[in-house]
């Protein structure tokens, strides 16, 4: 067994909100292997976004540890690229400038012309070849997220952290973006895949994209179970959703997600 790229151990995070301190995450432990796509799912308020801000280095935990490549995590780092739900891009820079600015952060010595070429290349990859000179406010939400993904990929970090990147996108475009991310991440098999931690509340999104799904339960956020996704790659949504295995797996996840609700309302496990 290889050592994990990201190792989270007994992570506890307290959130202070209006002078009340509450336990957002409690004793969360799981590992992410190099090149693995891991989704974190859970109901809203379960601390999944908090978990990601700890990984991003924006929020300091109260206890436990997070290690990347065996080294304790301190603050933000250039080995991690991030895509947020909103405002990943700077509104005063054109789409292309945003990507170039991102590239500059991870590749300090890269030449201007090289940077511009790389930015164009990734804009084309996400289908925004003509939108390079546009400002984010001139793009739809879906196009903004495409650009954010292009920037994260162009920065070529080993780890990608994605915090509900498609939650604010309409259903049709969400599916298109999921497929785009999937094909970009899977690649043609020649390059090493990036390590991804992807936060979502959409079960189908998590199944389609992930190797492994971490199910969190709320109040406080704890790991209910870590489930391996048993479907071969490359995956196709259209074929996947038709199979019985998919539905069985989906139901299993749903009941895991709803354990805490079932306990609270005093019923059996809920299977929808």
């Amino acid at each position: 067994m290889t050592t994990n790229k990201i190792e989270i151990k007994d992570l506890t995070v307290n959130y202070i909100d209006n002078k009340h301190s509450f336990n957002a995450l409690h004793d969360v432990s799981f590992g992410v292997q190099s090149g693995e796509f891991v989704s974190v799912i859970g109901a809203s308020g379960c601390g999944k976004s908090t978990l990601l801000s700890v990984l991003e280095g924006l929020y300091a935990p109260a206890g436990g540890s997070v290690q990347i490549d065996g080294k304790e995590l301190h603050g933000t780092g250039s080995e991690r690229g991030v895509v947020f739900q909103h405002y990943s891009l700077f509104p005063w820079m054109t789409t292309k400038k945003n990507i170039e600015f991102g590239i500059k952060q991870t590749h300090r010595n890269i030449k201007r012309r090289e940077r511009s070429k790389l930015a164009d290349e990734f804009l084309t990859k996400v289908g925004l070849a003509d939108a390079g000179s546009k400002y984010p406010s001139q793009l739809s939400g879906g196009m903004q997220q495409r650009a954010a993904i292009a920037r994260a990929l162009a920065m070529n970090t080993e780890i990608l952290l994605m915090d509900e990147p498609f939650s604010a996108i309409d259903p049709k475009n969400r599916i298109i973006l999921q497929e785009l991310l999937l094909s970009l991440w899977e690649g043609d098999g020649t390059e090493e895949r990036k390590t991804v931690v992807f936060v979502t509340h959409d079960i189908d999104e998590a199944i389609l994209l992930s190797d492994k799904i971490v199910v969190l339960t709320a109040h406080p956020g704890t790991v209910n179970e870590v489930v391996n996704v048993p479907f071969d790659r490359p995956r196709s949504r259209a074929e996947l959703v038709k199979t019985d295995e998919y539905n069985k797996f989906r139901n299993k996840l749903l009941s895991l997600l709803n354990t805490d609700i079932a306990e609270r309302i005093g019923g059996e496990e809920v299977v929808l």
Partner: protein
Amino acid sequence: MTIAKRYLRVVHLLFIALLLIQLLPDKSTKDVYTGKLITFAVAAEIIILIISSFIKKEESLKLVVDIASFIFALLGVWSLATAKFNILNDLLFPAPGKVIHQFVEDKDKIFINIESSLGTTIKGFLLAVIVAVPLGLFIGWSARVGSAATYITKFFSSIPPIVYIPYGIALLPTFKSVSVFVIFLATFWPVFAGTMSGVLGVDKKIIDSAKVLNVSKPEMLFRVILPASLQQIFLGCNQGLSVSFILLTSAEMIGARDGMGYYVKYYSDFGDYTRTITGLLVIGIVVIAVTFLFNKLQSHLLRWKR
């Protein structure tokens, strides 16, 4: 735009009306320079026709035409009240042609004074912006929450800058430097306060996305916080600019030897009200021109906002 929309405008009727008014006999006993007024009106009309032929946006044409209509109407009423019917005292109220004549006569002197006034304003204003913006960024960013700096700024910016003039005169060697100093103070505090409030108001999400990119401290200040607070900074600059003109002209009327404020004060002391009114109009035009250019700069730098 159709030809009718381009050329069928009230402004042209007003132009003709203005010319017809000039056919009336003069009642004023003084020289009223009707020819100069007609030359001016014809030149303006030609410019409007040229603009009408080339302008692309209907909205912009409407703006130009409406302003021109106002000018023609004003000149018409002004001629009637002075040269044609002599309703107003012709010592205090010169005819429009006379003001135009005076402007042409004095244009060298006027341009020297404009240059002096603008030079002083620009020096004080730019110096203030160059010092206030980086300082505001730095202080606003280091003390992000509950900053005492906000209150201290409120105290200093509540002192009307004009009261610094006597102290400035005692402190500084030339009257010019006093003007620059006072304009500096008048611009510094609003720009500094605007920058700080801009920094404090930057969306946390924007700061987070900069942090996760691992930007350096100078990049954080000048490539993230600065553009994110630019709108507030411009708010402060606009305030500083408008106060600067008021202060400058006041200062020039107190003790300067040149500048537009001096021109107006000097000639009104001699009872030369033609030059006084010429000076007033020139100051108005200069201030409008500077404000217009500054707004252009602002909308260019903020073009990414919707």
